[in-house]
């Protein structure tokens, strides 16, 4: 295994390196609570010392031989991985809302986050999974018009101040660069809440069209500016628009509201040479994948097993049209090593050999996964690829 250069990443995506194991740091991700548990179980203390989401050269990634796929987080054009409590999930609204605590008791704190959502979180595990959403900034056309003022694509805060220096730094990197290109469902849900959004799709389609057009214009301007300087290798949408048995909206609504805007973005990206276009969505994606493919999106993660996603079946169905990531059942990691091995062997050898596959657990690694089991998973994946196990670690 060599380091993850742009060329190697693109070759894997283009099915030119069958059998090549690439454990991407961007796909193998952990909750902070998971790392805390692992340190208790004997993992190095430095697991807790680094904000590994943004530290692509972190010792945590090096420990597991995870290879950096570098997100251009400094451009505020989409999702921000990080604390739900401290940062909010989206980095589109500029300026951010002033974070503040609304109320709290011994167990739960209710607060407004920088995205303008009112959220409730458990104090003991503030960053584990999503919080409970209590209120959202957009309720109707009037509040949308107010919110829209924070979506100026030309806001000076949206890009690093010294863009030329930043672009030069990014272009000097060997690793592939990935640009966030927004979302047409996920952000609307972030702004309105799921139920209000689903009602609005029926009750006020004009408002929804306006919100999506605003996003489309913002992303078009951001992509154009970002790629006027930085050599981007891949682009990422974030949607989270499915639940256990299927999509949160109908294919008809997808075609009506989302597909035309997706096409604007994906056509623009392809015109600039980016043909790896990724979508992050939890839930059952079987009905959504053909729609995304038709929209110009060709890379799917995390393919949650509990929601009926089967990467082997997807590869058989879509061949080299769909790049796949994830799909290692997190629930297997809660069980024995035999179960973990069975989970890996049932899909990973086939997927690696057919190419265009980036192995990872099918979402963030949860805190109940034992450290020893995750190490075993990584070593089993390395064994499949003919690589030696990770160096043995004893604290």
């Amino acid at each position, binding site marked *: 295994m060599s380091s993850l250069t742009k060329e190697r990443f693109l070759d894997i995506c283009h099915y030119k390196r069958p059998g090549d194991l690439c454990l991407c740091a961007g796909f193998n991700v952990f909750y902070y609570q998971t790392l805390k548990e692992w340190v208790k179980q004997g993992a190095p203390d430095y697991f807790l010392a680094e904000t590994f989401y943004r530290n692509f050269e972190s010792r945590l990634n090096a420990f597991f031989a995870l290879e950096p796929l570098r997100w251009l987080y400094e451009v505020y054009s989409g999702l921000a991985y990080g604390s739900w409590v401290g940062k909010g999930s989206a980095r589109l609204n500029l300026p951010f809302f002033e974070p503040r605590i609304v109320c709290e008791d011994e167990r739960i704190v209710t607060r407004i986050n920088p995205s303008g959502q009112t959220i409730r979180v458990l104090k003991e595990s503030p960053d584990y999974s999503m919080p409970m959403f209590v209120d959202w900034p957009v309720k109707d056309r009037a509040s949308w018009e107010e919110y829209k003022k924070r979506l100026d694509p030309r806001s000076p805060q949206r890009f690093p101040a010294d863009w030329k220096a930043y672009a030069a730094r990014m272009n000097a990197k060997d690793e592939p660069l990935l640009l966030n290109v927004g979302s047409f469902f996920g952000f609307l849900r972030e702004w309105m809440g*799921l139920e209000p959004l689903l009602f609005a799709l*029926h009750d006020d389609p004009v408002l929804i069209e306006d919100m999506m057009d605003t996003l489309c214009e913002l992303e078009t301007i951001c992509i154009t500016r970002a790629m006027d300087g930085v050599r981007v290798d891949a682009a990422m949408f974030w949607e989270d628009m499915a639940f256990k048995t299927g999509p949160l909206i109908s294919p008809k609504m997808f075609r009506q509201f989302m597909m035309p805007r997706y096409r604007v973005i994906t056509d623009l990206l392809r015109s600039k040479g980016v043909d790896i276009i990724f979508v992050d969505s939890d839930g059952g994606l079987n009905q959504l994948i053909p729609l995304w493919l038709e929209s110009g999106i060709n890379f799917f993660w995390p393919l949650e097993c*509990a929601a009926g996603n089967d990467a082997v079946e997807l590869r058989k169905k879509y061949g080299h049209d769909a790049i796949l990531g994830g799909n290692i059942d997190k629930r297997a990691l809660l069980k024995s090593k035999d179960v973990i091995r069975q989970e890996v062997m049932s899909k990973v050898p086939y997927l690696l050999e057919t190419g265009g596959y980036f192995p990872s657990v099918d979402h963030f690694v949860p805190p109940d996964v034992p450290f020893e089991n995750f190490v075993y998973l990584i070593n089993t994946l390395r064994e499949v690829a003919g690589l030696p196990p990770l160096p043995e670690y004893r604290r």
Partner: protein
Amino acid sequence: MENHFIAISESVKNGDHEQTINRVKEALNRGTPALELLQKGLVPGIQALGALFKEGQVFLPEILISVRAMNRGLEVLRPSLADAEVPKRGTVVLGTVEGDLHDIGKNLVRMMLEGNGYAVVDLGVDVKPKVFFTAAREHKADIVALSTLLTTTMPCFQKVIAALEEGGIRGTLKVMVGGAPVSRAFADEIGAEGFAEDCVRAVEEANRLLTGRKEMAR
């Protein structure tokens, strides 16, 4: 079925709440008993939608607007139903287990159960096992329905079942579980009789569990 029942069902199925209100009012003015309008008009509308959801012909937005239409129709009927003995299919105590604050799936299950004639006691999120037990005993629950989105809180299902057993009421009710990481195999493993993947199947599962209970009681 009489035409106005069919018309009300259709307006619920289509999610047209204004039309539902109008049709319910018209039928009431013609002297149709409120209970019949509920049982032969509103409820079949929601049930028909459930079948379409399972077939993949409608999705959550359609479910939501139909539940809204049914509830608006029910608001019109409610004053006339006050004295009527509205039969309930059963009582469900529902909640997201301790340590988990997710409520979207649970809320959809509540809406669909209520729309299909169940009395639902929604305990909210982050609910302790003892609270499930107390509510189940107080409300004489037929079903305790447990939800979680997290693998870390799945073991709380067993704690609730243990609390029901310790309280001596486990044999009087059924336990149904659901949530993103939950499977039928896990339900079987922990001794929960019911499992549902989504809000529509939760209604079917509740119906199945209570049918089973009635058969056992005979």
